[in-house]
């Protein structure tokens, strides 16, 4: 990373790159964006195929409680990763477990879990506020490129590697298990295993993306590039590739733009606004294309 930061700094000094690249945190943020973008875009297509948009939002919002628990248990408030990881994972797995064992409609169940997690988080934050400056949490909730460290990049890199390897080997089976679980079962695939694996991937990527996109907005980045790509593509392969490309572009542009334009906007909000503008363009294109 030091070499990369040095090269970027030299590039900025020589005038090849923008002045923003002379800042180490900016290089860290862009590397993080390059790592997390393709993954969010790729997983987002499965979120859409499995109709789990509400679920990914819920996991993101559950991060609030995870952060509060982490801080209360003594983790550093700028990076309460253990509390975040444990709570989000338990939340997601428990939600899926209850779904498989009750007849309650899934969206209702997610709504209940989301409300409980948010209420718990709100209650705990009152206690957290006594220990730390509550505004520090905004970085975790809405993303802040200033706070990305080499350790964060390492965690991100390992998470991304695990998810990409998992996704390459299981993408088809996860998709088949969601489109036609009976056919998947007859083919001998353990559909429950693939369901839980996917839930774990979503949770892991949510946690990995917290620093750059923010816990609250990560669900949106899982969804918007996929929704945009769905409007523009005609096959599953191009759907995944375009979604990954759009998510990566959103992360990169959304990270760079506030710096270049000197706008006081959190990186998460900026990234989501860029992704949403892609969606808007695609929607207008489809409406106009549909008319003609």
């Amino acid at each position, binding site marked *: 990373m030091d070499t990369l930061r040095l090269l970027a700094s030299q590039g900025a000094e020589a005038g090849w790159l923008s002045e923003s690249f002379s800042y180490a945190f900016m290089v860290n943020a862009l590397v993080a964006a390059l790592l997390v973008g393709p993954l969010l875009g*790729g997983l987002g297509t499965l979120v*859409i*195929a499995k109709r789990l948009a509400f679920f990914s939002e819920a996991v993101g919002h559950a991060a609030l409680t995870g952060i509060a628990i982490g801080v209360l248990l003594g983790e550093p408030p700028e990076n309460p990763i253990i509390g975040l990881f444990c709570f989000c994972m338990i939340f997601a797995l428990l939600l899926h477990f209850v779904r498989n064992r009750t007849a309650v409609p899934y969206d209702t169940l997610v709504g209940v879990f989301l409300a409980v997690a948010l209420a718990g988080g709100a209650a705990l934050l009152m206690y957290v506020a006594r220990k730390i400056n509550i505004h520090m949490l905004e970085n975790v909730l809405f993303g802040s490129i200033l706070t990305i460290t080499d350790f964060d990049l390492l965690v991100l890199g390992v998470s991304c590697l695990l998810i990409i390897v998992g*996704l*390459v*080997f299981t*993408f*088809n*089976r996860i*998709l*088949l298990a969601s*489109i*036609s679980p*009976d*056919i998947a*079962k*007859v*083919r001998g695939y353990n559909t429950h295993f693939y369901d839980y694996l996917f839930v774990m991937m979503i949770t892991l990527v949510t946690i990995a993306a917290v620093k750059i996109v923010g816990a609250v907005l990560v669900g949106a980045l899982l969804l918007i590039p996929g929704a945009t790509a*769905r409007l523009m*593509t*005609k*096959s*599953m*392969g*191009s*759907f*995944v*590739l375009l979604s990954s490309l759009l998510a990566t572009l959103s992360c990169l542009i959304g990270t760079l733009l506030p710096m270049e334009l000197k706008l006081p906007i959190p990186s998460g909000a900026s990234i989501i606004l860029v992704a949403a503008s892609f969606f808007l363009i695609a929607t207008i294109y489809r409406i106009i294309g549909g008319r003609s």
Partner: protein
Amino acid sequence: MGPSISLSNVALRYENNIVLQDISVSLDAGKCHVIMGPNGGGKTSLLRSILGLTPFKGEINVNWTDKKGKIGYVPQKATFEPSLPLTVLDFILLNQSRSPLFFNFNKKHKVKALAQLARLGMADRAMFRMGQLSGGEQQRVLFAQALLDNPDLLILDEPTNGMDDQGVRYFESLISDLVKEQKTILVVHHDISAVRRLEAIVHVVNGVLIESGDASEVLHTSKIEQLFNHYRSTPMTDVANKSTATTTSTNSEVA
């Protein structure tokens, strides 16, 4: 060679609703067996029990002659979201290969998938979205999927639903070919005249096994109305007692 399947005292209930009760029958290997019966009679539940998709009481044994073979399955209905860009080719590749769809550059896979679609007359629809296809076309694709691994046991739940005449005829000739290859085929079917053409062994199910035997015997015009009576006029326990006797005699005939 396909497997034989033996069912012994198979029962299934959803809470207070008894779906199947005391089904005992032996399905011979290398034959086409058709399950018929009125709506709500438990035909699909019986298929799902055999496939292990539904928990049941009793015993079901699929007896493979050698090692366990492949099973092909066409569900009664599959719902594909129209806006999802899942093409017909994508769906076949999903079932055929582990290479992820976004990274599948293997031409052999695509050639094989297209050949399978061509077999069912769907090659020219390969790039259509699954959700855009008519019900009959979707059934053809599901059938193509089921035949992918050259299965020894083929289980089809109303495979000709929504199919046009050409599709139905093609289905019948394919079933006939598969029986010649000694595959075991188990089909839920509603169309009595189509079943007569299949020359299959017919099992009529309405909660219990009502009758089993050659299509010409079971589907005799004099019996049809009685066999397919939607309402179970006799209490389930009485019917079950009667059916046990029927099943036993059927087994001995098959043996």
